[in-house]
Every structure is written in C-alpha cells, then in structure tokens.
C-alpha cells in the first residue's frame, strides 16, 4: 500500500485542514465536527442543502459546497457514514427558516444515520426533508432488497436542487426537483484496479492483470460480473446499454452526461469514454446537453469510471446551467 498519508486514523481530519487552508474564502468548518459549510452559511431565507457520507470519495462532498450547490457536507470516516450527531450539527449549522433538505446516497448506513439526524432536528422543530439517491443500475432494484446504490449521479442532485434552493424556492419545491432528478438519473461504473483503505493493509478486492469488474460500487463493492479487459468502446457500450435499458429514452430526448473518474484513471481515458458515449447516444437519436468529464465521486485510488445520464426537461436544463461556485464544480 503506497499512500501519501501520515496516520491512517487522521486522514479525514488532516484532509479537512488542507482543504480549509487552501480555500479559506469559500469554506469554513464547524467546530462541532468534520463538517464543511459555505463561508456565508446560514443563508437567510434559503433552503439549506446538506449531503455527506463516508470520506474517500473526494471531491464529494466537500468539493460541492458553495453558492448554487450544497450548504454543508458531513465527512464520515473513510467509506463509513457519518454519525447522526454530526449530521445534526450540520443541520443546526446551516439551517434557516426555509428548512433543510438532506441528500442521502442509498446505503443502509447513510440512510439510517441521516434519518436519525433528521428525527433529532425535527424534535427541535426544524423543517427537515430528505431525498435518497439511487442511480446505480448495476444493482437490481427490487422491493426485496436495499435497492440501487447512490453513486456519481448524486452530483446532478446537488447541482440542480442547489440551483433551485439558491433561487429562493421553498423546501417542497427543492425536494420535488431533487426527486425529479433522482427519477431521471441512471449510472453505472466499472473498475480496472481496486482501492485500498488507509487503515487496511490490502486491497478490498483483487483483479487479475487482464480483468475488470463491471458494475462496481464506489466502495469497491462487487458489481454485476468480472470479465476480461475490453476496449474502451466496448466497455462504454456495455455501461450505456445497461443504463438505457433502465431509462426508456425516446428519439429527441435530451440528456446531461457525466463521465466520472474513480480516482486513478487519466483524464485522457475519460474523454475517450465520453467520445463513445456521445456516439452511442447520437446514433439512438438522443441529444446530449451539458457534459461533465472529470473526477466527481471517486473511490480512493481505484482506476475505472462511471457513466451517468440525466434525462433533461427545460426546468432541469436551466437549473443545470445556473451559476455555481464550488471547489469542484464551477458554472459561470
């Protein structure tokens, strides 16, 4: 395991220090915990957006705190959901009279910890709503299971619900648009190499030199299957087809695209994937709107990528284009 770290138990704290030193004009940290909030929080009369989860997915979620996106991001230990008290502190730190929307990724731990925090805040009389992002089509969505996981598509929720909140809309409206994004977002990922938790001595799974894992989760959770490495075009076709099977797009529909690197994949390769995504969609008569290529929701140093599609309508399109000023996503 080769990492640029000091003490595996302090990686989150030291990272947060480094973030704050780098961006003192954008962010501050609540003294109550590992919580990054926008410098000017709480913003009067604005619905506050809070997300968070385990660390190790940087720039998610601290990198999306700022005007037009999140008001706070709660950082758990690496790959471990933060505890309810931390989330509760975040709520109290950024809430205004307009209320709070929690953006939760669909993992049992995240859901339960955020729910408990919401209950704590509600007991204080704070208006709290939450949405659960479940964009990962690699996992079967059945009422008998935990349902699909939340992965990179979450950033679309941050962006669009963030723009809606920034516009001064009500908690109900912000929640409604967040749910619309969730209903219209699908993602799928794949990995070439595993990731290694700072506290662990070994990778959390192993892949042979010519193997890849299709449908990987952002914590290295297994996907749909493992197979021999293929070309970027073949891999991309597989991911996009799985997404489209679940999306029911028709000719003339427009989508936003996110090609998300999982940590160790060169930008060059992400753009090669994007080229193919565009080709496939164009062939199917689907228009491509705003496209994001880069690292948005990583898995430590995992090599691989995920593709996310968001079916747009005029409202979502406009909110996606609205200004945002965060470390990892700026729209001018």
């Amino acid at each position, binding site marked *: 395991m080769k990492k640029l770290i000091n003490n595996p138990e302090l990686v989150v704290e030291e990272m947060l220090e480094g973030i704050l030193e780098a961006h003192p004009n954008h962010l501050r940290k609540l003294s109550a915990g590992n919580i990054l909030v926008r410098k000017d929080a709480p913003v009067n009369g604005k619905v506050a957006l809070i997300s968070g989860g385990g660390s190790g997915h940087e720039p998610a979620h601290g990198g999306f705190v700022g005007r037009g996106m999140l008001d706070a991001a709660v950082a758990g230990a690496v790959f*471990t*959901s933060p*505890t*309810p008290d931390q989330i509760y502190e975040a709520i109290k730190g950024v809430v205004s009279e307009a209320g709070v929307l929690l953006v939760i990724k669909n993992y049992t*731990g995240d859901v*339960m910890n955020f729910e408990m925090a919401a209950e704590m805040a509600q007991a204080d009389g704070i208006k709290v709503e939450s949405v659960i992002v479940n964009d990962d089509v690699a996992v079967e969505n059945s009422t008998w*299971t935990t349902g699909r996981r939340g992965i990179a598509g979450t950033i679309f929720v941050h962006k669009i619900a963030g723009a809606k909140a920034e516009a001064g809309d009500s908690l109900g409206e912000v929640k409604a648009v967040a749910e619309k994004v969730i209903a219209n977002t699908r993602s799928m990922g794949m990995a070439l190499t595993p990731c290694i938790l700072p506290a662990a001595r070994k990778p959390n799974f192993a892949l042979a030199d010519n193997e890849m894992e299709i449908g990987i989760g952002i*914590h290295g*959770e297994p996907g749909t299957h493992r197979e021999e490495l293929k070309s970027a075009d073949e891999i991309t076709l597989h991911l996009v087809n799985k997404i489209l099977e679940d999306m029911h797009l028709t000719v003339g529909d427009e989508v936003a695209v996110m090609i998300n690197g999982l940590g160790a994949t060169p930008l060059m390769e992400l753009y090669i994937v994007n080229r193919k995504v565009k080709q496939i969609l164009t062939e199917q008569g689907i228009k491509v709107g705003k496209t994001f290529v880069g690292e948005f929701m990583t898995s430590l140093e995992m090599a691989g990528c995920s593709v996310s599609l968001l079916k747009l309508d005029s409202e979502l399109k406009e909110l996606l284009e609205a200004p945002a000023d965060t470390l990892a996503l700026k729209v001018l």
Partner: protein
Amino acid sequence: MSLNSSQVKKVMLEIGETVEKNKEFLTELDLAIGDADHGINLTKGFRAVATKLSATETDDIGEIFTLVGMTLVGNVGGASGPLYGTAFMRAGSYAAGKTSLIADDFVGILEAAIGGIKMRGKAEAGDKTMLDALIPALNAFQEALKQGITVHGALTKAVEAALAGVNYTKEIQARKGRASYLGARSIGHQDPGATSTYLMLRTISKAVQTQGQPEK
C-alpha cells in the same frame, strides 16, 4: 438470576472486550460480503462506551443502556451504529428506572432491541442480518423458561440458538445491507452483524453464569 447496575456496567465492558478481541475476525467476515469495517466500527464504538461508562455514576440501568446506545450511535457510523445504538436505546427505555434485572427483563430487553432494529433497519428474520441471531435467541430463551429450565440453562439455549442463526445466515441470500448488492453471491458467507450479535449474547451469558449472584 438478578443483575444489579454495576454488574450490568461490567457486562457492557466485557462486550467491548469481546468485540475488540474479535475485531479482525468480524472485519474479515465483512470483507467477504461488505466493506471490511464491521469489527473496526464496533471496536471504536465500544471504546467510547467504556470511556462514557467510567464517567457515569448512575444506578439506573435504563440510563446505562441509553448511554451505551447513544454512544454507539455517535461513534460507530455505518449501518451497525444506528442499529445497535437503537437496540440499546430501546432497551434503555424498557429498563428505565430499574436498578436490577431479572430473567423476565431479559425477555423485555431482547424484545425492545429487536423492535428497535426492525424499525430502524426495516429488516425481517431471514434477511441475513443481526436479527437472524437475535430473534432465535429470544425465542429459545422464552421457550426454555416456559419449559421450566433454569435461567442459566435458558441463557445457554439462547446462545446456542444465536449460533445456529449465524450458521443459517450462511445458507441464505442477503436482502438488506451492503451484502444485498451481491445477490446470490452472498450465499455461503456468514453475516458479520449476526456474528457480532452472537458474540455479545455469549458474553452476557458467560458473565451471568460466572458472576453468579450479585455482590451486594
């Protein structure tokens, strides 16, 4: 059987020791079908519990359980934090005001814990979770009491049932938690949470049997 509050505290500390001793084991189990942190998470939580307990003077067993539950919620994270936390907090509500526990209280506590876990995790028996150790343990304990078996004997039955439950989790597919992403590939592996539940029950049983009667 009867346990006073200082014995209850002692059992809580012993559970922490058991968890810590089995940290690697639980984490290895979680590596196979989860994210390899179950032992780490629980150890962190029970260390915090030890600190908190050493700072409290209360005789109210309800308060002790509530403190344990809140400390777990605040320090474990992940799925097992809220689940074990809620379980202990519910047990705390059940035991509110009590300064000693008898056999029937063990039933009440397990029922409260199961109710809390079901509410929080929306899981049922057979979903391959900690419930698959806890529910059989409760049933066996109640059955044994009904049959007139001694409390010590009933506790032994409960622990045996929990272990059987752990083994049963090997045969079934996970429908809740991280392991559910594996689909049929979760079959063949025992559930880490069921395992930690079994270890806790075993610790309680041992403690009761060796402590014998309360000191005062």
